[in-house]
């Protein structure tokens, strides 16, 4: 079926100023669509703010009209959701400024949109202010001294950044319709910049005519362009064809309590070390072991924004049942494994009581506190404990000393998640021992 028009002819004329070229451009888009003859129910015209943003209402297609400069972003959401649709974006040069970032990213993705950038060199809707495409030295209502800025060359920029079809034409060019049709038929990202005339503002400020436009084109490097790249896959198709290189399990292991525990009352433990010391994951193993032993466990972690440097602290609360106590401020057990850890968690030591315990690396002593103090001396083990294994080794030793829950539960917790270093962990656990703790 050959269609007669994609425009709502009954609604005409278009709402633009006399002499404005937007209407001519819309007619040409219509002509381009007629050449291709797609089902209008498979087309979405997406527009945003600016005079050209009024035009979606004249199309007999699906339409979405949104916020200034964001049309390209809505269009990508639509394309990803319904890849079978043709998405036509109508935007002005104003939108290409405020939403330029979206244009760049859409081009980089090579997502299947056809963008018609209607560049009339100024903000027509708000009174002719200069935009990112206003040529240098030209007058606008907000740059009466002559525009001080260099104009953004959008097709060139987008082509450099992955767009697979870019073109620039003046609104009166004879081949505009066929260029538009090619852009619409293109599978990946396409953009056609159409140099337009705004008689109300830019035109009147700069005594603009077709001859002036041609001068502007040659003097300001706005040459007619047509560049196309074949063979690059469109983003949506690529998305659905590409599998994750490394699948991640989202479910956490089911924990059925089957061990006894020896915990009398709620126990607050703080383990403070450095990033890279596997503090957080080691404490999670202990927490799971506690749950396997019928206890409640809660873990909070503290680290700076740069996660691979500085301190790493875990706060662990174990209890017979769920308890709400807020932050731990006076831990029953404070483990300090590094200078970073001491700097951050040393503040708890003075608040601790005589029935509480501090375990601290020997070289970090002395520490002021009424709590019972132990120096951690890894030389006692006759083996080298690497930084990443230290928390695990010390916690294993602590478990053997404090006996709040059975080692069997800890071993089961290690096996819950498939860890690369499981064997190493079992060996370390075997070698761990309270002999590394020396009363200080």
């Amino acid at each position, binding site marked *: 079926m050959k269609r007669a028009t994609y425009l709502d002819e009954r609604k005409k004329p278009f709402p633009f100023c006399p002499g404005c070229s937007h209407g001519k451009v819309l007619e040409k888009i219509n002509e381009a669509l007629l050449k291709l003859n797609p089902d*209008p*129910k*498979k087309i*979405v015209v*997406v527009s945003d703010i600016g005079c050209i943003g*009024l035009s*979606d*209402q004249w199309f007999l*297609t*699906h*339409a*979405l*009209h*949104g*916020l200034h400069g*964001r049309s390209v*972003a*809505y*269009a*990508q*959401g*639509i394309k*990803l*959701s*319904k890849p*079978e*649709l043709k998405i036509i974006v109508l935007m002005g040069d104003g939108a290409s400024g405020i939403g330029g*970032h*979206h244009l760049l*990213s859409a081009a980089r993705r090579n997502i299947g949109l056809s963008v018609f950038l209607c560049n009339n060199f100024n903000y027509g809707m708000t009174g002719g202010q200069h935009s990112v495409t206003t040529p240098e030295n030209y007058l606008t209502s907000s740059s009466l001294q002559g525009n001080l800025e260099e104009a953004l060359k959008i097709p060139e920029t987008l082509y450099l950044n992955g767009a697979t079809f870019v073109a620039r034409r003046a609104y009166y060019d004879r081949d505009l319709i066929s260029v538009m049709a090619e852009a619409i038929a293109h599978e990946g990202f396409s953009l056609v910049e159409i140099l337009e005339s705004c008689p109300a503002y830019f035109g009147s400020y700069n005594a603009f005519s077709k001859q002036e436009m041609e001068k502007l084109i040659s003097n300001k490097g706005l040459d007619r362009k047509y560049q196309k790249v074949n063979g690059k896959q469109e983003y949506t198709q690529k*998305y*659905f064809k590409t599998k*994750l290189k490394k*699948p*991640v399990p*989202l479910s*956490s*292991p*089911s*924990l*059925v*309590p089957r061990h006894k525990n020896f915990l009398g009352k709620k126990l607050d433990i703080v383990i403070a070390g450095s990033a890279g010391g596997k503090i957080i994951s080691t404490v*999670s193993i202990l*927490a799971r072991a506690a*749950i396997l032993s019928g206890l*409640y*466990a*809660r*873990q*909070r*972690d*503290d*680290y*700076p*924004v740069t996660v691979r440097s500085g301190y790493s602290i875990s706060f662990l609360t174990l209890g017979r049942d769920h*308890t*709400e*106590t*807020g*932050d731990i401020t006076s831990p029953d057990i404070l483990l300090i494994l590094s200078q970073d850890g001491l700097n951050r968690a040393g503040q708890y030591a003075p608040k601790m009581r005589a029935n509480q315990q501090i375990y601290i690396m020997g070289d970090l002593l002395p520490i002021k506190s009424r709590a019972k103090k132990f120096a951690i001396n890894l030389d006692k083990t006759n083996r080298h404990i690497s930084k990443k294994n230290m928390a695990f080794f010390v916690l294993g030793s602590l478990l053997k000393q404090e006996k709040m829950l059975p080692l069997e539960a800890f071993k089961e917790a290690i096996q819950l998640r498939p860890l690369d270093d499981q064997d190493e962990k079992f060996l370390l656990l075997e070698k761990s021992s309270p002999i590394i703790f020396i009363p200080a």
Partner: protein
Amino acid sequence: MAFEFTDGTTLMVRSCILSGCNFYAGYPISPASKFHLLMMTEMAQMGRIAIQGEDEIASISMAIGASLSGKKALTASSGPGLSLYSESIGFALMAEVPLVIVIIQRMGPATGGATTNLEADVQFARWVTSGGLPMVVLCPGSPESIFGLMNHAFNVSETLRTPVIFLTSKEMALSKERIDSRKLLLGKIHDRKEFQGNRSRGKKYIPFNIDKLSDIPDFLPLGANQLVRYTSSMHDEKGLLTRDPQKVKKKLVHLEKKILVNKKIIDRYLPDLDAGAKILIIGYGTLSRICQEVSRRIRSGGRKCSLLTIESLFPLPETALKKALRGVESVVLPELNSGLYAESVKPFLKEGQKIISITRVDGSQLDAGEILSRIRSR
């Protein structure tokens, strides 16, 4: 009996997946980065759509485009991202776009404290955009309730065709604890109503057609068999721009009424009222469970104490609040901000009733002992 040891973020992502969310667009930010990461991988694994936008505005805009194409869409961020979402949330309100927005609060304003907890975006979430319309803000009181509340967020968003903010904080999102798997209840899933033809107007689809002002217009996606038109600008029932005062008024009253008249659908609260109690504790967010502990301790000391846990922060569950306030002399409202929610509760107080706003803004948690001692000192 089976437990798991996990964090709020993982539970949020799992409930999103189970609720049928099939479009995610987001931009990483602490403390919501883990949420972003899990959504990006999990959605891709399931053949659903997830994309990392170039910024928060791109992300929410993609989600709006997707929702209007029929997807159950979601975006997620923290306070700084919510600032950037502002205008787009207005779009979602105006064009009646179902959309769930997860906000994991951190210390603000501005870049604030990226890994420091604070729950001070409560009123910001409520008044996030221009136009003064009601906004739905849900806030889980425990990790277990995340599951059902997230599905509720989608249900409200889909059935009332409105953006819903799911507000939580670093503390809830990243703390891990023992979770009783039996308490993870999703509830029923309710999707938006698709247009099937209409008695008075026939088979022709009119995108914003309603009979009563509180009605929710039937939905057809972009790309449907009938042409549809959506817009962020003031529009008539056909989605065409209008300045006609009658049509403008109809639209704005409709946007207000569809939330307020259907408030009962949104309400989520847990009353634990003690007849004859002179004290009412109101808990929300991460302090909900600490408030339960406070009330337990007051009661174990032989005093009567009522407790109201609120998960639908806005619109306020007025009926439940009024009932809980009956006969009470003082209302205790602990918050991890300068007392922001207390401002919304105050208009409901009768003469002689006072509010004890207990606040903390240093990034640390309020505990039961401190709340109790601050109640005593007042």
